[in-house]
């Protein structure tokens, strides 16, 4: 298990290095001179040169990359070209919003998705199953922006139960969390149902019942526990999706999260901010996959064994 962890962690570091290199070099060959955008069309060639020098942009690109990487490892992502503040600070501020939105949306999706999937599987074939799965199909096919607008119209504009947009209070987060979580909830519930149906018919479930365990102890302790692998797989990839996918919902609900920060920085060609943002998204994805891998091993002893020997 320890070897397994170390190996996966090293892999994650390697992936991050690759992503950082690709991000940096790709962004440095895209057209559009950030210094010119920053200073405007009327700036003299001399002024441009001075600024380039001050920002280290006149050095060879490999040196620039190396400096950027080592600075980043020290937690210094550079300064935004346009907003006079360090990237790390801007990212941090937006991250607070995004993390809350995505985190709660994820919890909502996970808890309700697994619950509904299990209940549907246990009621396989009857009316409860059919109703729950119709909701899931609806949730998967409905685009997030549509759900968002619908929620805004019904609960904010018509009923006045919840605020329309912004991030001031916890109530401001309710509608965005639902809007963002809906499709993830829907697909988790479907995966859970399928996995549970498969497990429910297994021999060991009959054994568990034969011991005299309560129905729900059999379903949860023996059934759900064995259905977790496919659930973790889908839920894990979604954790990455939900963070990056929050951009749209942030925009609709006027929330200053990482999403809107990224969109603005790309429009302005604010390179340090774009790079920082991409690295942030990559880091989340890599960490998520790492967690998923470790969870696999925790949940299924057979994976631990083969993973440990491979």
């Amino acid at each position, binding site marked *: 298990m320890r070897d397994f962890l170390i190996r996966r962690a090293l892999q994650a570091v390697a992936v991050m290095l690759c992503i950082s290199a690709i991000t940096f070099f790709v962004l440095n060959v895209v057209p559009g001179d950030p210094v010119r955008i920053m200073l405007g069309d009327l700036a003299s060639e001399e002024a441009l040169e001075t600024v380039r020098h001050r920002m280290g942009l006149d050095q060879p690109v490999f040196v620039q990359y190396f400096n950027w990487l080592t600075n980043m490892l020290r937690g210094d992502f550079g300064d935004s070209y346009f907003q006079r503040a360090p990237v790390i600070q801007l990212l941090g501020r937006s991250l607070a919003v995004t993390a809350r939105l995505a985190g709660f949306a994820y919890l909502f999706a996970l808890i309700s998705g697994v619950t509904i999937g299990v209940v549907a599987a246990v009621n396989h074939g009857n009316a409860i199953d059919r109703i729950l799965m119709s909701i899931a199909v609806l949730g998967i096919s409905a685009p997030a922006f549509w759900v968002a607008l619908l929620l805004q119209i019904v609960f904010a504009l018509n009923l006045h139960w919840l605020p329309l947009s912004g991030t001031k209070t916890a109530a401001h987060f309710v509608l965005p969390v639902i809007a963002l979580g809906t499709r993830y909830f829907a697909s988790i519930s479907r995966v859970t149902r399928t996995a549970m149906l498969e497990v429910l018919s297994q021999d060991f479930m009959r*054994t568990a019942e034969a*011991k*005299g365990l309560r129905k729900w102890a059999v379903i949860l302790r023996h059934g759900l526990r064995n259905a977790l692998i496919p659930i973790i797989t889908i839920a894990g990839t979604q954790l990455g999706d939900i963070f990056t996918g929050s951009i749209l919902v942030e925009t609709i609900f006027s929330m200053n999260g990482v999403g809107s920060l990224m969109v603005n920085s790309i429009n302005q060609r604010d390179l340090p901010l774009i790079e920082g943002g991409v690295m942030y998204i990559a880091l989340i994805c890599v960490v998520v996959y790492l967690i998923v891998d470790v969870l696999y091993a925790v949940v299924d002893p057979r994976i631990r064994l083969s993973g440990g020997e491979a």
Partner: protein
Amino acid sequence: MADTNFIPATGASAGAVNTFDAYGAGAVERMSKAEKVLDVQDLSVTLFTEDGELPALQGVSFAMRKGETLAVVGESGCGKSMTALALMGQLPTPPARIVGGHINFGSTDLAALSRDQMREHRGSSIGMIFQEPMTSLNPVMKAGRQIREGILVHNPQMSKADADARALEMIKLVGIPAPQKVFNSYPHELSGGMRQRVMIAMALACEPKILICDEPTTALDVTIQAQILQLIDRMREELGTAVLLITHDMGVVSEMADWVLVMYTGHVIEYATAYNIFHHPLHPYTQGLIASIPDVNAVTEDDLYAIPGNVPMLSDLPSGCPFHPRCPFARQECAERKPTMAPVPGDEYHQVACWKTIENWGE
């Protein structure tokens, strides 16, 4: 039994019945006096399917006695597992449901209990082990915990440490070397035989009066088979458990059984002491099963006897005697009237459902 032309000339079963020479006529006397722990009367189970109602079990009756083994035999699909699951209150619902009869356990009729009410009996009154040791244990839970779980659910006041100790004791009892190691092993780390031992430890941990073994050795290697059967037999003797042994291997029956229940298409068609089943089988189907026992001296394919034809589908059961399309003695009336279980004249512990015996056709 070589007195019927139904049994092939090779004299198939000669090797299998030696065990019974130890039983005299007095054995029945002794056996029938043992305490009855389960009395099944007229148990009927119907499958309510989209294509109609199928009679999976019809009027099944038998008794189980303390410290004795009742073997349930019959070809695949005859309702052996269905009978076991009915006793456990674990019928596949839907489609199966008990539609009649009684399962008397002490003063309780288990057939009248709901699946949830049966819970307190499962594991504590009746334990069960299944055919597939490979898939019958939870792959993500350590063996010891799986045993402990059953102990704790029936002894809620017991501490986890005590339950662990009890589980370990059971692991030792079923003859597992390195008990502590097996206690901490996941099922995939154990061999098939070890897993079946763990299953037995689990099923017996609460000392149920009845142990149901549904083809416990079918999936195992021959040498391991013998060990597991010996273990079941030792447990029966040491704990006084009544064993219901489901098998389609007549050789196993001859080794293990005190009583034999022969099933066909959800009916019991013969019920007697193992001695009588092997020495005086009356139902042509029973005779066919015995004739099908592979002979140790058999050398060619031709020496292997098989009952002609196939078990009919539940949706397409023959009229009258369900065995008549395959029976070499069938007469016209067999297709018209259904024989019910009746005691053989002079032996109330030998029952058979066949006109040939009931109406004493002779040969």
